[in-house]
């Protein structure tokens, strides 16, 4: 545990640095309405690195970085012009084209190179978990320099129109994105860029306030993502991205309470939740009646969370058969795992197993897998039959619950009934 925290904090520090610069660029990007420009620039940088690679330069060399930078700057020139070109075709469409063509061109190049696919993967799928203080030392000066340029030129950069200042914007942004994508990967960088900025823009209208809100939200959410990744044993980058998604959803939920009439907002929320739950239940009811043997997501989830829920509609015999099969399936799984472990140990310990013994272990393993699948088939069959048996009564009951939950004006309907 201490070990994990020991190498989590440097990568958390990297995340803080990334939030710092990306929240700022995100606000600018949102204002310019060029959401996917980071993907296009990252892909262009990867294309540059690929070209360097094809010419025989090693991955981490200065030449490779030079190629990446040159390609990024060229792309910045293109991007600076896209706004003036985008009269009938939206700018975002041109950016999309830059992205797909750069991606496809790298695939074509890579296809000609031995050991190429790995190279492209390295550039576009960074892993924040294995980044550390060394990376912080390289990105902090770069980000500070970019921030300084933007601070000094803030009035120039704010007024749009001039192709040159657009170029400066995209060039600096390209340098930032190129380094961050290699560190944290495309998904995470996109989240760092867009989500804190969106939350900031949602709740404030001046840049300093937007930035402050974005930074706080970004750092807190990253911390939650790291914590979740550690506590629930999840891949870190993906956990942080999902945490950012949840953060944006929460911000969206909080927004009407902060910005509008609290009571109206509360009323709307309650109605929306009631409609949502009622629709879910009614959907499950109809699905159960029509296809009782299919996967029923809502009921399956309930049963997964609380297995005793099954006892509500299983007969005693069904429950016993289900339990039995599930125990056997687990027993077969454990037996197979034990055998695999035993074989693994025999690779280095004691006498080496001969071919006949290996064949026996192997066929035992196959049999365990088959038997386990058989038990799982029994489980799903028992469940399907139980559901078929209760399909009409339960789906009618569920429909009634859904109707009661739905915020229909029952009282008015009742009053209107002819007596």
């Amino acid at each position, binding site marked *: 545990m201490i*070990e994990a925290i020991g190498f989590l904090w440097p990568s958390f520090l990297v995340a803080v640095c990334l939030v710092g610069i990306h929240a700022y660029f995100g606000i600018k990007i949102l204002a310019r309405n060029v959401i996917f420009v980071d993907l296009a620039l990252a892909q262009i940088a990867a294309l540059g690195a690929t070209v360097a690679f094809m010419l025989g330069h090693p991955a981490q060399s200065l030449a490779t970085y030079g190629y990446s930078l040159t390609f990024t700057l060229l792309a910045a020139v293109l991007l600076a012009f896209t706004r003036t070109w985008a009269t009938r075709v939206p700018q975002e469409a041109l950016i999309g084209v830059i992205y797909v063509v750069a991606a496809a061109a790298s695939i074509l190049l890579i296809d000609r190179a031995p*050991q190429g696919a790995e190279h492209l993967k390295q550039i576009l799928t960074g892993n924040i978990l*294995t980044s550390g203080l060394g990376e912080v030392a390289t990105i902090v000066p770069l980000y500070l320099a970019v921030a300084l340029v933007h601070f000094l030129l803030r009035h120039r950069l704010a007024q749009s129109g001039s192709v040159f200042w657009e170029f400066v914007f995209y060039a600096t942004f390209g340098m930032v994105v190129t380094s961050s994508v290699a560190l944290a990967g495309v998904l995470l960088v996109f989240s760092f860029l867009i989500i804190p900025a969106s939350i900031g823009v949602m709740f404030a209208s001046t840049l300093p306030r937007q930035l402050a809100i974005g930074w706080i939200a970004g750092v807190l959410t990253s911390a939650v993502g790291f914590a979740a990744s550690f506590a629930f044993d999840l*891949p870190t980058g993906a956990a942080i991205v999902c945490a950012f998604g949840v953060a944006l959803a929460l911000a969206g939920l909080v927004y009407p309470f902060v910005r509008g009439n609290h009571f109206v907002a509360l009323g709307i929320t309650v109605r929306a939740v009631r409609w949502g739950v009622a629709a879910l239940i009614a959907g499950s009811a109809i699905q159960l009646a029509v296809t009782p043997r299919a996967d029923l997501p809502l009921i399956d989830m309930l049963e997964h969370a609380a297995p005793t829920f099954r006892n509500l509609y299983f007969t005693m015999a069904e429950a016993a058969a289900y339990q039995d099969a599930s125990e056997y399936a687990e027993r077969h799984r454990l037996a197979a795992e034990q055998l*695999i472990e035993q074989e693994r140990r025999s*690779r*280095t310990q004691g006498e080496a197993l001969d071919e006949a013994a*290996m064949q026996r272990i192997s066929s035992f*393993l196959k049999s365990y897998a*088959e038997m386990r699948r058989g038990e799982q088939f029994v489980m799903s069959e028992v469940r399907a039959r139980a559901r078929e048996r209760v399909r009409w009564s339960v789906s009618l009951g569920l429909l009634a619950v859904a109707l009661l939950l739905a915020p229909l004006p029952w009282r008015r309907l009742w009053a209107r009934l002819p007596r």
Partner: protein
Amino acid sequence: MGQTAPARAQERIRVVTTTTDLRSLTEAVGGDLVDAVSLVPANFDAEEYQPKPQDVLRLKDARLVVRVGLDYDLWFDRLLEATAARELRRGGPGYVDASWGIAPLEVRGVTVGPGDGHAHGSGNPHYWLDPKNANFITANILEGLARIDPANAKTYEANRQAFLARLSAKLTEWETRLAPLRSMPLIAYHNSWPYFARRFRLDFVDFLEAKPGVPPTPSHLAGIIEAMRTHGARMVVREPYEPERDVAFLAAKADASVVVLAASVGALPGTGDYLSLFDTDVAALVDAAAAR
């Protein structure tokens, strides 16, 4: 003479294999009588290969196909189904699943590929990395070649025996060279090495990427570093196409060195055929162990 050489090349039996390892073994059995090509280039992740238009042309001329099986080259089923002649498809005379007869290790589930009625486990598919399994693989290839070219069956059998004799001599040499590494704890990026480990009695303690394509979680990474310290693992094995940075990070954390090993023919310079693949890997391991 100048005229006959291309004419002979025309008559050679075209064999399409999925990987370079199977190509090398097919050449060992077929000798001059076959012209083998592999679809997946050296150093590409064969599990994620996407067939190209040229592959369809290659299959068109082929009389025999040889695949790894064990769910390793699942994309091959669709390619065969879509483009190949009936004889080359699963069950046809020109179809060889090289894994037939192999005892797969670490069988955890049942195959997800199209079945042929038999219960197939989906064990670890990297079985060619045990040189003794070449015995089964070449036997399967021999059977396939003899089926479509019975006239030359004797030659194929002789080729195979000669190859196996050479392999057996080499195997003794490799085992002797790797003997000092016996039970030396190793870490690998991906679990490609169980067959290799079993043959040479190496101890792969843990893997960075437990599931293909899913980056490691913090506690998994912490667990590996912990394991490296307790077992005294000082070497991390990486294949050339696997991420350099993650492995370097781990090596730096636990003061270990990185060894790049080829899991397939052609993945590293000097691994031109099946025998030199092991020559190179054994040398890399021995050198890395000596440098510690």
